[in-house]
């Protein structure tokens, strides 16, 4: 029968919903798991073909779209606008605008912050805990750009403000790089994706980690000592989206899937399972109590205001960061 190729993050397409979608429409969804970098790389290599729908973060769309043209403009008329939280839809449209056309619709959002085992690390409140020798051998984070940015904020800089100034940004990153190299002996490992980290926190191999909020919440269910903490210098806020690759074959199915996923009862299945907040309007009645409690526990009003939302990433920035990340990884 008909199939739709979906390029997305692990957990963004629960089997339950895939089955339901198939029952409703007869379309089989085939999922390829990925992350932002690999999603872009893959679509670049296929020149926007091979997949019918991708789910990059909103800040990683415009610059690559400019350079490689891997997405097609989103036809918002084919979306059921009332399913989306209006402010988020507007923000995503705004941030994915290239040549006057927008390329994505919001799916879910969340933050990166600290996941902490309070018993072992009661003092950890900000990203600087990642550099604290008190937690030597028990620290973990991704060796990816969010870590660089988070530490810049924690050390009192505003990296987003320097996006336009390549020189200054390079200097800032060099500084962060040095810090990371200096603190390298403290690191247990650089985790690469969610479950691996959860595993090591669960087993007590790691006490302080920079991670996505849902991870902390998932662990909190199992072990109340572990929880997500919005860092003092501000959690990093991201929105993951739907974007249709330039040469998608089954565009119809892609739109059907978007509308399907954003239906409150379906969005709730996702959120209840993965704990990420959804961009779906009217989901609340379907959510588990515990999921709502998570957010309230971790975010004070002040924390919410302090969330730092990623602006679109300019092209040159990635190369600068890439070099720093390599350097950190290679140092001893």
């Amino acid at each position: 029968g008909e199939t739709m190729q979906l390029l997305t993050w692990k957990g963004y397409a629960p089997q339950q919903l895939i089955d339901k979608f198939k029952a409703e429409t007869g379309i089989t969804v085939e999922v390829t798991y990925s992350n932002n970098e690999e999603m872009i790389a893959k679509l670049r290599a296929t020149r926007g073909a091979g997949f019918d729908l991708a789910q990059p973060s909103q800040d990683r769309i415009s610059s690559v779209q400019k350079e490689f043209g891997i997405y097609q403009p989103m036809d918002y008329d084919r979306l059921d606008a009332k399913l989306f939280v209006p402010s988020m839809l507007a923000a995503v449209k705004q941030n994915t605008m290239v040549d006057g056309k927008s390329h994505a619709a919001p799916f879910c959002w969340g933050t990166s912050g600290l996941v902490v085992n309070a018993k072992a690390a009661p003092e950890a409140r900000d990203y600087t805990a990642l550099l604290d020798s008190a937690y030597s051998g028990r620290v973990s984070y991704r060796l990816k750009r969010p870590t660089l940015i988070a530490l810049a904020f924690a050390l009192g800089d505003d990296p987003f403000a320097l996006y336009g100034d390549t020189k200054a940004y390079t200097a800032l990153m060099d500084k962060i790089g040095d810090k990371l190299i200096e603190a390298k002996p403290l690191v247990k490992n650089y985790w690469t994706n969610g479950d691996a980290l959860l595993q090591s926190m669960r087993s007590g191999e790691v006490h302080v980690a920079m991670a996505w909020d849902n991870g902390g919440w998932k662990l909190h269910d199992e072990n109340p000592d572990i929880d997500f903490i919005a860092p003092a210098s501000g959690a990093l806020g991201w929105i993951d989206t739907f974007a249709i690759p330039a040469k998608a074959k089954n565009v119809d199915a892609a739109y059907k899937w978007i509308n399907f996923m954003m239906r409150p009862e379906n969005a709730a299945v996702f959120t209840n399972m993965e704990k990420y907040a959804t961009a779906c309007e009217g989901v609340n009645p379907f959510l588990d109590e515990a999921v709502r409690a998570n957010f309230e526990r971790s975010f004070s009003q002040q924390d919410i205001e302090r969330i730092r939302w990623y602006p679109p990433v300019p092209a040159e920035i990635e190369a600068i960061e890439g070099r720093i990340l390599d350097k950190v990884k290679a140092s001893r």
Partner: protein
Amino acid sequence: MIRSLPRSGAYTALYRIYVGAFFVFLFAPLGVTCLLAFNDSPFPSLPWYGFTLDWFTSAGPERIGILHDAHNLRSIRVSAHTAFWVALLSTTVGTCGAFLFEQEKFPGKEALYLLMLAPLVIPGVILGISILLAANTAGLFIEERLGWDVGLLRPGFWLVVLGQFSFITTFVTLVVSARLKKFDRSLEEAAMNLGANRMQVIRHITLPFLRPAIISSAAVAFLMSFENFNTTLFLVGPQPTLPINLYLQVRDGSTPVINAISLLLIMGTAALALTSLLLSREDR
């Protein structure tokens, strides 16, 4: 020293221990992997919570066993499908190569032979990216000049097949050549002398002689393709092969369903390897 020479007891004992330790080293990771496929725990690690078949048979939603894991099952199918085509293509072309290098004389043969060996010294990752680049260059060129979008020229099933084919064929060529070297050319002459033409000679004499080598190299090609990671990594499109899929899961952490898959994989390869080994023994 060797079987026929007298040797001291201590020497023999130490040697046995060494080889024993070596085999433990060889099998420890596999054994552990298989064992933990049956642990009644959501994580592939000790402690042992009891025996379960959940990671094979459970239908979800909490635990999804391999039999119900659409995502992994699909990648197994993709891998098998890929391996089939790779085995077919590389066995065919490799056999042609063996004939070419063993039985024909032509200018530039030495150079071509060295080129044929090149994939042995090209790291798989490099092979992957260079094929990706070339496909991309060709794809862009065709798209710009002719406006055609050639599916073959972008990451996807067939590019993976071609990528793996490009180095596995070298192995097939070497294996079939080795057998062809042992072929007594006078058998061909004898067949001709009895009235066969060149095509009939190949069909009735040479190919039957090569059959064990062809079968076993096809099996090897199948296995090599099935487990290939390095070259595939860069060429894979919307249909990930099993190793790629497993890699993402191992990297990201996963349930013992990976152990279950590994167990099946180990048993499957063992069966295939044993069959091909027995076949090639029969021929000796």
